[in-house]
C-alpha cells in the first residue's frame, strides 16, 4: 500500500457521533485528543502513520474533498446536491443521519395556499441552489435568501413566508408554527471520495470504500 498521505474530512456535530463507530470499525482510530471536546486541534493523527483526520463543517467537508485537499470524507447528500461538485464521488451510503429536505410554511398560510398557482416565491434557506432547481423544474421562480441557520425564524419575523430546510422529526417546525408542505429529497450521509484520488490510487481508495462498506454491513 502507498504511504502517500491520506486525509479524511469528517463533519462536526451531530453526524460525527454516528460516523465515528463506522470510522473505527473500518480500522481507523484517531489520537485521544479527537474525543476531547475541549481540544482546539483541527487535525488529528491516527493509528495509521500516513492518515490524518480533519474536523470541519459539513459544507466544508465537500469543499476539501472536491479540491483534493482531503481524499475521503463523510457528508450528507444535501450538501452534495447543493454544490454539485463534479470532482466528488459518493460511492457508499453510510445510512446515518437520516432526514429530509423539505419546504415548510406557517400553518395558517398552508390552509389557504395553492402551490400550483405560484409563479414566484421567496424562500429562506441554506440551500439556494437545490431550492432554485427544485422550483424551476416546476416552473416556479424561487428567490432565495441565504441563511446559515435558524431558518424557522424567518417566517415569524416576516423575512419571507416559506423556508427550505432539513427536517428530521419535524418537532422544530412544529415548535415554530410551521408545517411541511413539500418533500424535496431524502438525506443520509455518504462516504465521499475525491475523483483524482480514486483514479490515481485506485487500490488504496477501493480498499477503504470496501472497509467502510463492511462496517456499514456489520452495523445493520
Amino acid at each position, binding site marked *: 500500500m502507498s504511504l502517500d498521505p491520506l486525509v479524511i474530512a469528517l463533519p462536526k456535530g451531530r453526524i460525527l457521533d454516528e460516523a465515528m463507530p463506522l470510522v473505527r470499525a473500518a480500522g481507523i482510530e484517531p489520537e485521544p485528543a479527537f474525543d476531547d471536546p475541549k481540544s482546539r486541534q483541527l487535525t488529528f493523527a491516527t493509528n495509521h502513520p500516513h492518515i490524518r483526520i480533519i474536523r470541519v463543517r459539513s459544507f466544508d467537508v465537500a469543499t476539501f474533498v472536491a479540491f*483534493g485537499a482531503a481524499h475521503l470524507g463523510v457528508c450528507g447528500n444535501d450538501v452534495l446536491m447543493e454544490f454539485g461538485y463534479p470532482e466528488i464521488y*459518493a460511492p457508499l*451510503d453510510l445510512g446515518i443521519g437520516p432526514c429530509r429536505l423539505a419546504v415548510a410554511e406557517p400553518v395558517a398560510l398552508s390552509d389557504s395556499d395553492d402551490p400550483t398557482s405560484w409563479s414566484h416565491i421567496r424562500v429562506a434557506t441554506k440551500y439556494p441552489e437545490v431550492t432554485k432547481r427544485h422550483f424551476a423544474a416546476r416552473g416556479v421562480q424561487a428567490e432565495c435568501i441565504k441563511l446559515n441557520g435558524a431558518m424557522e425564524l424567518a417566517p415569524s419575523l416576516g423575512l419571507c413566508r416559506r423556508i427550505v430546510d432539513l427536517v428530521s422529526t419535524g418537532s422544530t417546525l412544529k415548535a415554530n408554527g410551521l408545517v411541511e408542505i413539500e418533500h424535496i429529497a431524502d438525506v443520509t450521509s455518504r462516504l465521499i471520495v475525491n475523483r483524482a484520488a480514486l483514479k490515481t490510487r485506485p487500490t488504496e481508495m477501493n480498499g477503504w470504500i470496501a472497509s467502510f462498506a463492511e462496517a456499514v454491513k456489520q452495523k445493520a
Partner: protein
Amino acid sequence: MSDTANKALLPTGLRDVLPPDAALEAVAVNRLLGVFAAHGYDRVKPPLIEFEESLLDGVGAVTTKDTFRVMDPLSQRMMGVRADMTIQVARIATTRMVRHPRPLRLCYAGQVLRVKGSQLRPERQFTQAGIELIGADTPVADAEVIGMVIRALDAVGVRDVSVDLMLPPLVPAMCDALQLSPEARRTLRDALDQKDAAAVKAMGGDVAGVFGVLLGCIGEAEEVLSRLQAMDLPAAAAQRRDTLAEVIALVREEHPAATLTIDPVEYRGFEYHTGVSFSVFSRGVSGELGRGGRYRAGEAQERAVGATLSVDAVTEAMEPLSSGPRVLLSVKDRLLAGRYQTDGWVTLNALQDPQDFAAEARRLGCSHYSVGGDLHAINDKQG
C-alpha cells in the same frame, strides 16, 4: 464608466503569466509537440475564432456552454472563440485535407477561451496541446494515441501518470438492452455521474443489479477487466468491452509500468465520444492533465481518435526549469556574448559599465561578471 479603480485588475479567470512560468509553459509545449512530430504528427494551426456552427458541430457540442460568441460585423454571422481545438482540427482534416492519405496524423497547440473555468481550474484562458489521428478505427490506433500521451508526458518529466479508461457508449448500450425510459436514463445518468451507489440501488430491479455491479468496477485496469469479463453483458456492450481489453493489452505491451484504471460508468464531458476514451491524471495534481478518445470527425463522420493535454495542468506537474548561470558582460565584453552562450551561459549586456561590477551583477541576478575578457565570480554570502 468603470468601477475598476486599479488598472492591474484582470477579469475573472484571466491572468498574466510571469517569468519563469511563461518560459516553462513554452518549453512544455515545445517538448510535447516534439514528441508528436517525431511520431509523424504534422502541425496545423486553426484560427482563434470561427463561425459558431462549425465550432459547435459534432464533439464540439460539449463546448456550447463554454464558448464566447461575437457577431461578425462583416458577414453578420455569429462567431465563436474556440473553447477547444479538437473540433477545429477535425474540421481541417475532413475538409481542406480530405485528399491527404489516411490515416492522417495532425498535432496542434494554442490558446483556448472559456466562458467559465471549472471548479478546479478557474482559468478561462489556457493552453492546449494535442493530437488527432483521423481515418483509423483499430484498437492499435486507440493504443497509439494513449501511448503518445504517456510518452509526451514522460518527455516533459511528469511522473506518476495514470490513465483512466472509459467507454462512454457502454451505459447507453446497456440502457437500450434494458429498454429504459428517457426519464429513467436521466435519473441513472445523474446517479452514475456522482457514483451515487445509494441512488442507483434506489432504482431497483435489473437496473440496480447491473449498474450496482458496474459501479463497483472502478479501479486497476486488469482487475476491472476480469470482473467485466465475468459479467453477462448484452452483445453490443460485450463487444465494447472486448475492444477495451484489446486496447489495454496493446498499451501494456508498450508501457508495462503505466498505471491504467478503468471507469466503465464515467460519462461527463464524453457524451459525443463513440468508443474507448480516457482521462489522464498525475499524483499530486488535483485535476485532469488531459483527455481524449474516439469520435466521428466532420460531416463525413470519419472515424477518428485524439487526445488533448491542458498545458497549464501539465506544467503544474513539471519540475521548475533550471536555466544556465547568468553572467553580466561589460560594454566591451558584449562582443564575447556568443562565446559565453556556446559554453552554456546566459549573458546580460551592461548598457554602461558600472562602478562596482560585483554589486551590479548581484542586483541583476547574475553569479558572475566579465570585464576585459576575464570571468569573475561574485562572492555571494552563501559562498
